[in-house]
């Protein structure tokens, strides 16, 4: 069956991708048995389905995603957690005493895992999988740039960690916590992440990030 795109080609909304309506995946829609792109992105095939990897747009929570959120509301049976922008997740805890024992306050930053995501809303796992982040620098970047920040098999993120000496906690929703021993390292990591966000998808990014970090770590603050 014919496909109308080459792998990782940039497609626009309304562009014909395939004649087989059953192969419609994420970021596409079916009209008269044909698959069209719904968003701007890179067309690809995932599990036999035609998908479009979005270049922009809001974060869409998937089950199992690790996210960073900010406690927005404390309820008798759990918490409301802001995942940035319009997204809110719920932490449901059946036991009331447990809620008190956790003692999260509004504004606390937590690291959690998405348990359920659907029409009823987003729910986070409870228990060991829900942790409070007590220190560090909280920043937000565009969620679609997160895969680039991690790099292929973690190449980018490992380099960042090694070069700056910082610990980085990344939430799929775009929040990042930088925790380092010295301010210089934290600043270097922050600058590097901002550079990645700005210039994601450009070639030779890894080298440029490496150069930037080295420059800052040597004391030349740009």
């Amino acid at each position, binding site marked *: 069956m014919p496909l109308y795109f080459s*792998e*990782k*080609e*940039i497609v*626009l*909304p*309304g562009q014909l991708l395939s004649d087989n309506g059953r192969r419609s995946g994420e*970021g596409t*829609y079916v*009209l008269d048995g044909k698959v*069209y792109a*719904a*968003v*701007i992105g*890179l067309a690809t095939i995932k599990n036999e389905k035609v998908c479009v*990897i*979005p*270049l*922009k*747009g*809001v974060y869409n929570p998937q089950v199992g995603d690790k996210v960073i959120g900010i406690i927005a509301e404390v309820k008798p049976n759990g918490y409301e957690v802001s995942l940035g*922008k*319009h997204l809110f997740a719920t932490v449901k805890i059946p036991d009331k005493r447990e809620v008190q024992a956790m003692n999260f306050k509004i504004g606390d930053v937590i690291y959690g895992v998405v348990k359920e995501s659907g*029409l009823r809303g987003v729910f986070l796992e409870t228990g060991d999988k829900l942790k409070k982040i007590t220190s560090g620098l909280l920043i937000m970047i565009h969620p*679609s740039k997160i*895969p*680039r920040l991690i790099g292929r098999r973690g190449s980018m993120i490992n380099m960042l960690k090694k070069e700056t000496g910082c610990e980085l906690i990344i939430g799929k929703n775009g929040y990042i916590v930088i925790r380092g021993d010295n301010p210089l390292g934290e600043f270097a990591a922050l600058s590097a992440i901002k550079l990645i966000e700005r210039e*994601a*998808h*450009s*070639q030779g*990014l890894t080298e440029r990030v490496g150069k930037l970090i080295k420059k800052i770590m040597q004391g030349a603050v740009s």
Partner: protein
Amino acid sequence: MKSNEVKLIREDGRRLDGRAFDELRPLKIEVGVLEKCDGSAYVELGKTKVYAAVFGPREVHPKHLALADRAILNCRYHMASFSVDERKPLGMTRREIELSKVIREALESVVFLEEFPRTCIDVYIEVIQADGGTRTAGITAGSLALAEAGIPMIDLVAGVAVGKINGHLVLDISDIEDKYGEADMPVAMAPRLNSIVLLQLNGRLTGEEFKNALELAKKGIMEIYQQQREALRRKYSGISAEEV
């Protein structure tokens, strides 16, 4: 009739600005021009200059307006005070409120609103300079801004105004042609769906003329649609595939 006294066609059979009957004004489209929004676009059609900005999907305010099964699309078409010859007072006039509504309905027909329940998507269309065809330029810019914001949509929407001057059907009418011509018909279409999402008509056309005018509009829209796609492609052309 007074309107016929004004000559809108030159001796050499061209229009006042030297265009042929079926010719668009010089078109310039740019995407991602504004910084603090999620998506933006700029469309320049001759002297008509329009910016569009998209925010969202974001929380609805006030909260009771939110719909449980889909997003709401807000649209604001506004002309800057300095966009017309005589200063337009600040705020929304009746005309602007009405145009906001028709533009919203045109854009609603292509956006997958049901993907973002309980949210709203705001489209702000700002006319910087007006010289006829601002609503259609607004739709062209608005749909590009929506696409650039990463909002799933069926297709881009493009629009153009056709009119009748001194008995001739013309494409992409300017302000003078609108004021002294016999008819003005803004049309917006989603070319992929081959459906008309906006159609208004001021003045009079016969049935035959209407059909021809629609064909003319379609031709102009396809031209604009191609340029829209090119502008979007240009914006993302620097992206290489290996990185994702």
